[in-house]
């Protein structure tokens, strides 16, 4: 199994550009999450989803959008990129049946906004 796959691994954007970070999991997990990790800071939750068609905001949702049309995919959309969105983004998933927040993370997408 591939687990959680994120693309791209690296991306440089100009201020005002838009892009989508892709996330796919092949574990049939119900729950999926997007976190951002800034240097010296803890992971912050951007958006999460408890199943296809259901999404909700986390701690830092401003400037981002998500969709969950299938169980496998949970893309994160950045509209009008700003330097404050420079960060490493992690997608994660878990199975509701485990009853615990044992998250499986992707390898991350490093985004720089100049």
């Amino acid at each position: 199994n591939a687990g959680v796959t994120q693309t791209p691994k690296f991306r440089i954007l100009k201020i005002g550009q838009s892009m989508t970070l892709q996330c796919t999991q092949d574990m049939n997990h119900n729950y999926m999450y997007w976190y951002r990790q800034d240097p010296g800071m803890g992971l912050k939750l951007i958006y999460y989803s408890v199943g296809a068609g259901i999404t909700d905001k986390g701690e830092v949702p401003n400037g981002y959008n998500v969709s969950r049309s299938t169980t496998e995919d949970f893309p994160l959309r950045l509209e009008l990129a700003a330097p404050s969105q420079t960060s490493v983004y992690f997608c994660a998933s878990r199975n509701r049946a485990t009853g615990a927040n044992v998250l499986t993370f992707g390898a991350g997408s490093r985004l720089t906004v100049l």
Partner: protein
Amino acid sequence: EDQVTQSPEALRLQEGESSSLNCSYTVSGLRGLFWYRQDPGKGPEFLFTLYSAGEEKEKERLKATLTKKESFLHITAPKPEDSATYLCAVRLTQGGSEKLVFGKGTKLTVNP
């Protein structure tokens, strides 16, 4: 406010030199404390879950313990391959929904 505080921020050990990492939390109604390991350029990898004070979990050279206010990750006779950033997270209920709050991590370097 900081609900999860990890210390120290960075720790350098010699191979074989045992030590402990600390994770203190100020949340009520803890619904689980989690330890993750993160290698450079990779996503965090799950290590342990602890639910109640007095609980302990072990895996190779690592042992995690939990009290009512903090958790320790004890590293016995570490090896260079134990070098990583160790993240602590607590699960709590806020506004009717559950959330996972992460600490900033402790970067461990084990020198040969």
